[in-house]
């Protein structure tokens, strides 16, 4: 027995030494090649031997089984080994070959806002490695930035360039240095801009009848405007309806309630202003509808008069110390034409813009305006003036996901980096997004096979270590 114990212990020491060497070699290889090395067939045999040594240790050293701390540590190590092997790419491939398992080890998914997806792709972003047994719908995606308090908002101009066939081929943009009261040239145009006023904390003011609200079309095509204000009411003659605003949302989202769905206020989690409407028929029956800015068709039913949420143009701005956004009044002049507008961003918007078409005529050539050298492409059409929030680094990004099986939403979660969705045997992580428009999320998909064993093993390993080296000596001292 003693000889066997010696042999086992020597094998353990040799195995640990070999693993140390392999780890160091792996460190020099870098993450990619190290992963390949440690998942290769020879290493699989090695892992198996380590596992057998652990099992053998239990057989050969009875104290390991009797004393809880030692048992915990070694059992924990064994569980980690087994769980890790069970969850490895190789094990998934083996189960696919031998058992026809459809479980995907890992991959990526790209989902555009408002659509669903169940295909999982390889890291190259194109090869399909499999399909999930459920769909994922991206209901919304947004990014949070660190605020740069005290920094002024910036002005910029974006001048689109269209090709001979009328399609957009390029966008030129640049910042405009501005000071209140100073006239500056607007690059890429012949226009000049002056910031007449800058309010660091402002709110919009609207002309009478022009506040945000729901525009409803009567049968004769005439539209009425219902202000986005609780209690506001309008009456239509044809079809005969009284329409009231029941609730007003800054950002409306929908969640499951009982058999159906209910809207709720999710202010700060994106941009979807909405109004909950009540349609009252002459016979007294009432129905509710939702008029929302995003995906407006979802709120309507057949037979309804056409209605939509409208963002009107603010006609002015006034100081509001509670506001988190500024406002700037600009006057743009070009070739004798003039316009004065307010630039007023929404509460969580990163920027706002105004179209310079009223003063900068179409086909305005960029830069020099020299007609003697015509551009091969059609020159710029109306440029836009942008008022941009000074943003710090990205703080976090969020995807509001719904898990759908057979058309039914069975789970939902807003995930962010560091907070995945766990469903159907997979973890779904917020991985990346499209940096252009922020309408497309990239998720990392990871199988959860073997995870429970690994967690249990880690708990046992750490708990056992603390008990053995911290707990037992203390208990021994207390016992005298």
């Amino acid at each position, binding site marked *: 027995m003693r000889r066997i114990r010696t042999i086992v212990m020597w094998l353990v020491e040799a195995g640990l030494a070999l693993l*140390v060497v392999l780890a160091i070699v792996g460190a020099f290889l870098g*993450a990619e090649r190290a992963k390949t090395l440690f998942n290769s067939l020879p290493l699989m045999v090695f892992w198996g031997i380590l596992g057998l040594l652990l099992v053998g240790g239990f057989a050969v050293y009875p104290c390991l089984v009797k004393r809880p701390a030692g048992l915990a540590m070694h059992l924990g190590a064994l569980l980690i080994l087994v769980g890790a092997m069970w969850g490895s790419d190789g094990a998934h491939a083996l189960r696919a070959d031998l058992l026809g398992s459809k479980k995907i080890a890992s991959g990526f998914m790209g989902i555009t806002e408002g659509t669903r997806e169940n295909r999982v792709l390889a890291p190259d972003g194109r090869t399909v490695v499999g399909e999930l047994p459920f769909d994922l719908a991206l209901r919304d995606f947004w990014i949070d930035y660190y605020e740069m308090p005290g920094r002024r908002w910036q002005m910029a101009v974006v001048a689109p360039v269209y090709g001979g066939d009328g399609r957009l081929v390029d966008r030129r943009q640049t910042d405009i240095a501005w000071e209140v009261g100073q006239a500056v040239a607007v690059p890429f145009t012949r226009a000049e801009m002056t910031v007449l006023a800058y309010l660091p904390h402002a709110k919009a003011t609207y002309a009478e009848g022009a506040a945000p609200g729901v525009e409803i079309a009567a049968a004769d095509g005439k539209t009425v405007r219902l202000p986005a204000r609780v209690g506001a009411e309008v009456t239509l003659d044809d079809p005969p309806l009284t329409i009231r605003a029941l609730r007003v949302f800054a950002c409306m989202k929908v969640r499951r309630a009982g058999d159906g769905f209910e809207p709720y206020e999710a202010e700060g989690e994106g941009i979807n202003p909405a109004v909950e409407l009540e349609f009252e028929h002459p016979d007294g029956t009432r129905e509710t509808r939702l008029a929302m800015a995003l995906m407006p068709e979802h709120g309507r039913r057949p037979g309804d008069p056409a209605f939509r949420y409208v963002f009107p143009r603010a006609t002015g701005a006034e100081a509001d110390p509670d506001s988190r956004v500024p406002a700037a009044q600009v006057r743009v002049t070009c070739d004798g034409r003039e316009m004065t507008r307010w630039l007023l961003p929404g509460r969580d918007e990163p920027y706002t813009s105004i179209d310079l078409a009223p003063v900068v005529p179409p086909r305005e050539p960029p830069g020099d305006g020299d007609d003697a050298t015509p551009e091969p492409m059609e020159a710029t059409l109306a440029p836009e003036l942008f008022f941009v929030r000074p943003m710090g680094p990205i703080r976090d990004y969020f995807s509001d996901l719904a898990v759908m099986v057979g058309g039914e939403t069975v789970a939902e979660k807003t995930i962010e980096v560091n907070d995945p969705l766990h469903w159907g045997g997979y973890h779904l992580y917020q991985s990346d997004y499209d940096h252009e428009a922020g309408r497309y999320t990239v998720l990392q998909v990871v199988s959860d096979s073997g995870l429970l064993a690994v967690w249990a093993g880690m708990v046992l390993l750490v708990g056992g270590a603390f008990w053995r080296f911290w707990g037992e000596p203390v208990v021994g001292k207390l016992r005298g």
Partner: protein
Amino acid sequence: MAIKVTILGLFIYAAMGLYGLAAILFVVRVRRVAWVLYGAGCAVAAAGWAYRWVDAGHVPLQNLFEVFLTLGALMFPITLFGRRLLKVGGEAGDAVLGLVILVPAGLVFSAEPKMLPPALQSWLFVPHVAAYMLAYVVMGKAAFQAFSVLLRSGEQRLRAERDTHVVVRLGFPLLTLGLVLGAVWGKIAWGDYWNWDPKELWSLAAWLVFLGYLHFRYVYGKRYPRANAAIVLLGAGLILVTLLWVNLARIFAGGLHSYAT
């Protein structure tokens, strides 16, 4: 590298100076004064810690600067704990460790809250780093004891060997905890509890060496004190590589931990 021209910076530099002087005095055996200076250094570091708490409005354990500041103040209690409860010496080495630990706090890490990228914003960040740094400090203490084993002979060598063993047993659970917390954080943030990147592999290698030491000592006891010490020093060396080299060297191409650069 930036000198902190603040009150907090003064506290830290004063503590560093006191630790440094104490270390020298311990080595030349002017022990009474050394203890006084060492204790004073701790008091100054602790005062800085309290100042930080009041100034920042939260318990100083929220970022790297604060973790290292805390450890700098904890060095003296660790020495005391070693002396009184574990019957282990090594004050000189401990004072040096205290000085070294305060260097990043005093000269490298910013005291201001950083705008961390999304991946680093996890409640597990601080526990993972704190567990590892505490473990490293303890294993550093063990390494100094292991050096003594090689330098001394006879009774003193055996005494140093015993001390080494005791301190490794103190630090090993912390090392294991740091490793596991890193795995948990990795799974929650990056999708996998192990990514085979260089930092992980070096820290795994260090952990395995101490694991091997514990098994070796279980079988052979005190029979080969210098072999025991050599294994501990190898482990400590690997900890140094994990700490210093990986973040700086471009040799270990890429991997998740390279966001530190």
